[in-house]
């Protein structure tokens, strides 16, 4: 018994090190990458490049926050990119019809939340698989966005200065979309680590049956998580609209895959029960930096997707090896 415990103990501390390691090691890689880029990538350390890169990845990162929670739950949400487009198109269309910009945004976000609620109900009440359900919702939302715009981007023109500030303004030199992202990351990272409600998400994702027997209303937990994910996607759509004054039905195309990749690189697991918002942010930043380097080095954009895939594979392979070493 004594011996068994000792060996278990070394196993445990190893696991502990990995988890503490996960974020620290990605952070380290990001720092190394930045140093390399400062020296070898011309044009990287300019204010405009850094600002554009950060704004560029902030939409994906907002989606990744919701995606992390969904992955912790043991689910998946493929609809976020499409819901982002849907939200921006709904708000844009309403504004063109003369509605107050803020009211239009509110309606768009509420409709996004409703889409998440619908998905959540289908998953919990009928027991559909999240993959299929959110795949269908992805096509439905994207379809609605195309129908509302007749397939081409619609310009809202300059409707309201205060609304434009969301996407175009900045405070102390930091662009507002990045600020919004930072605030969301801080809030959700803290909540995911500490709040009772989000702890229930970890329990449900780790072992749904046991969570149910522990008195946790797992259906409710699931429903709220899909609503949260869709709501964040709706918010991302509003920010995009505000940034360009244009509602594009193709907005957020493929964003769900980037959000999943970011969350997984940051430590979320497809089996549920694992993942942090901070880790997901780091994952998105890592992929964003690599892509930025490719752009600045004049590598064809077609390489970006390939390289992102390789980074994702490296992250999960490293993860599997770390766990294997932990087990043997």
């Amino acid at each position, binding site marked *: *018994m*004594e*011996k*068994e*415990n*000792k*060996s*278990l*103990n*070394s*196993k*445990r501390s190893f*696991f*502990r090190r990995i988890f503490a390691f996960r974020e620290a090691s990605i952070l380290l890689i990001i720092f190394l990458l930045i140093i390399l880029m400062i020296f070898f990538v011309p044009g990287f350390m300019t204010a405009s490049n850094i600002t554009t890169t950060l704004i560029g990845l902030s939409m994906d990162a907002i989606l990744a926050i919701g995606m992390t929670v969904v992955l912790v739950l043991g689910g998946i949400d493929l609809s976020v990119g499409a819901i982002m487009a849907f939200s921006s198109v709904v708000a844009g269309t309403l504004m063109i019809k003369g509605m107050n910009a803020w009211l239009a945004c509110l309606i768009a976000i509420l409709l996004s939340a409703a889409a998440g609620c619908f998905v959540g109900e289908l998953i919990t009440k009928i027991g559909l698989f999240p993959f299929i359900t959110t795949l269908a919702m992805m096509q439905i939302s994207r379809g609605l966005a195309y129908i509302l715009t007749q397939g081409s981007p619609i310009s809202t023109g300059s409707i309201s200065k205060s609304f434009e500030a969301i996407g175009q303004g900045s405070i102390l030199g930091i662009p507002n979309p990045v600020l919004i992202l930072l605030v969301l990351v801080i809030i959700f990272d803290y909540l995911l680590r*500490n*709040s*009772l*409600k989000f*702890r*229930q998400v*970890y*329990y449900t994702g*780790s*072992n749904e*049956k*046991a*969570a*149910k*027997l*522990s*008195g*946790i*209303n797992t259906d409710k937990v699931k429903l709220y998580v899909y609503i949260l994910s869709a709501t964040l996607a709706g918010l991302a759509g509003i920010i995009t609209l505000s940034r360009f004054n244009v509602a594009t039905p193709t907005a957020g195309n493929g964003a769900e895959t980037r959000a999943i990749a970011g969350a997984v690189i940051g430590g979320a697991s497809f089996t549920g*029960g*694992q993942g942090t918002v901070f880790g997901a942010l780091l994952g998105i930043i890592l992929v964003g930096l690599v892509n930025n380097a490719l752009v600045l080095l004049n590598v064809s954009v077609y390489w970006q997707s390939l390289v992102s895939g390789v980074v994702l594979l490296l992250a999960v392979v490293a993860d599997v090896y770390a766990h294997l070493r932990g087990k*043997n």
Partner: protein
Amino acid sequence: MDDVPIMEARGIYRSFHGIYALEDINLKVYPGEIHAICGENGAGKSTLMNILSGSLIPDKGEIYFEGARRIFKSPKDAQVLGISIVHQELNLCPNLSVAENIFIGNTPVKSFEIVDKKKMVRDSLSVLEKFNADIDPNEIVGNLSVSRQQMVEIAKASSMNCKVLILDEPTSALTENEVEVLFKNLDMLRKNNIAILYISHRLNEIFRICQKVTVLRDGKFIRTDKVKDVTQEDVIASMVGRKLNQIYPEKGRSGSNVMLEVDNLSHKKVYDNISFKLYDGEILGIFGLMGAGRTEVARGICGIDPVDSGEVRLFGKKLSLNNVGQAIENGLVYITEDRKTQGLFLNMKIKDNIISSTLKKVSKMGMVKNDLTDELSTKYVEMMNTKYRSLDQLVINLSGGNQQKVLLAKWLSVEPRVLVLDEPTRGIDVGAKFEIHQMLRSLCNSGHGIIVISSELPEILGLCDRILIMCQGRIVGEMNWEEATEEKIMGYASGTKISM
């Protein structure tokens, strides 16, 4: 019985992280005998079996098979020689048919590698017939009961020219009747000169069907004896390294205050008109063969599964049915028989497991507080006398007995008033079992209501003060411990005697 061992292990060592899980193990297995391997959880039984079946490679030591030294690099190497293992958790493909499962390793084919389904079904039938098993080879495995699935797995092993069959806790999920069938089949295999290595906690079974018994303790070889030369007490003493003079705690005395009252609880086709009372000061046992509906009744009472009609009153207060949250809040908890898939969050920390049903208690303003979490989990983990290094340890790395203690600690942290425990000591070692029994008795003495569901007759007889017996969804018998015997209980449970 031959004098030449079919398989022999000499000086086997195996370590994990520099700690020996097995040290200098010697074992001789002869054809035509059933050889039991005993030991507490963590004694090294599974590690040894994994080495003998090729899943693990020893650090040091030699394995001989039919007189020649063999080195197993993978389970396939052992299988080719005729060494098969049937794990406690069965390894079948639930979506495939019985025949497809039996021939998963050597599927018969016609030309162009087209599967010869007719031959596969025919051969499966002949294998299954040997076991007197009335199983359709075309049936999907997932539709079979656990005992039949196990039979398929044993049939699968024996179809591969099996010479040594390793069984890991084969009876843990079986009812008494199914165990009988299994024993008959094992005996048949033994008579066909197959050597069987039989891992079990159940000494009664070992003394019934095994010829030899080997005891391991803390990874070391303790002794091998002929079963007829030793007593159960001897074996228990070598397993735990001490003489257990009292196997069950003292009996209690039933009071007259009703703690829990179940009135005409029914659920269509599962159980019917279940009524009983739980008094203070008693441990109430519910016995029944598999399919009798014990677990279903317990889940119904505790609000986990829906109920068609009936009433549950806790201290006179009527509980709303199908509301597990309310039951827990009122102090009525159900502790599952299936700790791994329904009880614990295996990949989470000990402390996260403890607080999973007490989140509100350790939270302030909706935030879970670390200091409160540590305080609460330490209290209950210590109360259960759990062996652990840190509250941050993952539950998956604990032994079965300690996992069960964590599960109990979790539910004690709710401060329940009535506990319904479903198979509270399944698959755990003798020492931990005794500790859990003592804990239940002391909870009972301190005013908790305790209901224990068990398939182990000795546990029901040893631990409980009053026993209800269920058969086919009904309560068919009730007796006090003084008048209860194994024969009486089995009589009711198998439906031969109906009183009341």
